[in-house]
């Protein structure tokens, strides 16, 4: 009951924001928020696969493409029929249109989920690096296949997609994605995902069906990526496979890595940051990608756990703030007698590693 009230409340707030925000900021920035929302859905769904279940997938753009094209194909080809039917039955066009849109989004998501299932199957036998390449490969294969389907435009791209995406739908689905993934990961299933990530053999030995959970992660992650793709298509009103190359997959991976693999808050914030950053970097557009790449390398060396690591930001954090303010930081390398901050010789001190090494 409490949850239902919460969901309704959030929906109302989002509808309100949908009409309020455009009056406050200029429409271009408002559209950036929509892109942020789409990226949030992508990042959180990828985090489920990469971060929580430890399956390194870099083909997320492929799922997005399937969802986007399926959804667009449904609204483009079936939309007019449904509209006619509705008109002849005397129903309001906008309500029918919007509900049909939501249904087609779900359909797109389901199509992606099926693809996720098919991609998840080989993941059973493959470890990290191989899986990464296979998912990359699937992403490319999906793209090449779509490129050859003339019904959705092929090399010409799919134009004249009706405009259905607005701030409300994007933020609503972002909210849904976050809630679903959050609930999933803080349940027993979530523990199963984490156990698959930490040590698959041990998990299997403890009776957890790792196969089932790996595939489940792919299916759910792909579903939301498909929804994001549908929203994307109806925002851009035009779809072309050039938007779904492995560069796109890498970008989502960077978002997840930056935010912290295993942290939903991290993904959300990183998605927002990395949507806004390219816009901010417009003055130095030639160096944009160089900055991105250097950022990625720097991040991996300096702070591989990303911004949030595996921690989340919850109400609890804020509530317990007053009590935590005075806590001292953990110390890094000790100061030696002459005040320098690092050790002079290699490996003089034998330290017990903080985590068990998986080498």
């Amino acid at each position, binding site marked *: 009951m409490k949850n239902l009230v919460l969901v309704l409340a959030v929906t109302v707030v989002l509808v309100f924001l949908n009409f309020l925000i455009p009056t406050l900021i200029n429409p271009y920035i408002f559209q950036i928020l929509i892109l942020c929302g789409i990226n949030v859905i992508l990042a959180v769904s990828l985090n489920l696969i990469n971060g929580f279940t430890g399956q390194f997938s870099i083909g997320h753009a492929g799922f997005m493409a399937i969802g986007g094209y399926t959804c667009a194909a449904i609204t483009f080809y079936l939309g007019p029929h449904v509209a006619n039917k509705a008109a002849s039955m005397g129903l309001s066009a906008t309500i029918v249109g919007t509900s049909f849109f939501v249904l087609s989004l779900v359909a797109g998501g389901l199509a992606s989920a099926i693809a996720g299932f098919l991609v998840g199957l080989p993941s059973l036998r493959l470890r990290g*690096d191989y899986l990464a*390449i296979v998912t990359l490969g699937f992403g490319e294969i999906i793209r090449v296949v779509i*490129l050859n389907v003339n019904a959705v435009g092929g090399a010409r791209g799919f134009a004249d997609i009706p405009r259905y995406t607005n701030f409300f739908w994007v933020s609503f689905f972002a909210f849904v994605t976050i809630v679903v993934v959050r609930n999933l990961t803080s349940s027993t299933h979530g523990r199963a995902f984490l156990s698959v990530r930490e040590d698959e053999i041990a998990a299997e030995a403890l009776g957890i069906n790792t196969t089932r959970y790996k595939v489940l992660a792919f299916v759910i992650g792909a579903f939301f990526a498909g929804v994001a793709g549908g929203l994307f298509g109806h925002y851009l009103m035009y779809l072309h496979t050039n938007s779904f190359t492995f560069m796109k997959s890498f970008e989502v991976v960077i978002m997840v890595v930056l935010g912290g693999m295993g942290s939903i808050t991290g993904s959300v914030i990183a998605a927002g940051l990395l949507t806004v950053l390219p816009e901010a970097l417009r003055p130095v557009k030639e160096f944009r990608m160089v900055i991105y790449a250097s950022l990625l*390398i720097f991040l991996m*060396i300096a702070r591989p756990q990303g911004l949030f690591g595996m921690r989340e930001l919850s109400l609890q954090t804020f509530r317990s703030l007053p009590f935590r303010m005075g806590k001292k930081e953990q110390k890094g390398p000790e100061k030696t007698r002459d005040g320098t901050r690092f050790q002079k010789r290699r490996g003089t001190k034998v330290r017990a590693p903080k985590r068990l090494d998986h080498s």
Partner: protein
Amino acid sequence: MQEFLQQLVNGITWGSIYALIALGYTMVYGILRLINFAHGDVYMVGAFVAYFAARLVGAPGPVSPIAAVLVLLIAMGSCALLGVGIERGAYKPLRKSPRLTALITAIGVSLLLENLGIIVFGPDPKFFPQIVTPRQMELIPGVLVGRHQIVILAVSILLMLLLQLVVLRTKIGKAMRAVSFNRQAASLMGISTDNVITFTFAVGSALAAAAGVLVGLSNPKIDPLMGIMPGIKAFVAAVLGGIGNIPGAMIGGLIMGVAEVMVVGYVSSTFRDAIAFALLIVILLVKPTGLLGTGMAEKV
């Protein structure tokens, strides 16, 4: 029949290129268990260095064979340095980190090289000077083999034989094999793993550079993004042959080249890039260790 033989010639030529690049992947993976995504971009840098070096020695214009070899060596040398630099700068700090971190860093280095290439070399494709004058020879009636295709084949075979020699008959080669077998035990035996890893990267990068130069010869258009697809395909070739296995990489490369050309020639050219991935998925499902690879039991 002629068409088939011609396609075979095309395929073997490409296969040797893939083999050269795949060798770098397979050696690095064998030692560090890292897929060096940046390897394809080292291939690109090799082609560009050779482009500039060739212009230095007088191209476009007739170039003596010695100068041509010099261009090749310059390219190989500078890429060896580049490979060592990448290893020291980006991969070494992550030796103790989880493999995923290193993989992401590799992707980052790859992106960095590509985009730096675009900024430094310009995004437009450049025309690689013809340091080997093209001439067609008709071995079998109807099957034309270009002079540069023969050069590619000859140089590739030579380099691969050299590599086999180094790996099987020298001390450093023995050290490489030891380190790829078990890094900790090798270091306990007194082998300087850092040096071996550096050497491996240097050799792998030099081979990729050679591939870049050879490709520039026969397909004289080079641009900063030319390394992406060949890099991925060469990786697939390495997996096909059994990653970590040097003869496997060579065979994998050849199979990859021939398969691609055959599919494009006889089936459909739209699936040229997809064939690589399809092959990969098939091999990983059927025999994940690759053709010549040996399975390693995972210790619990």
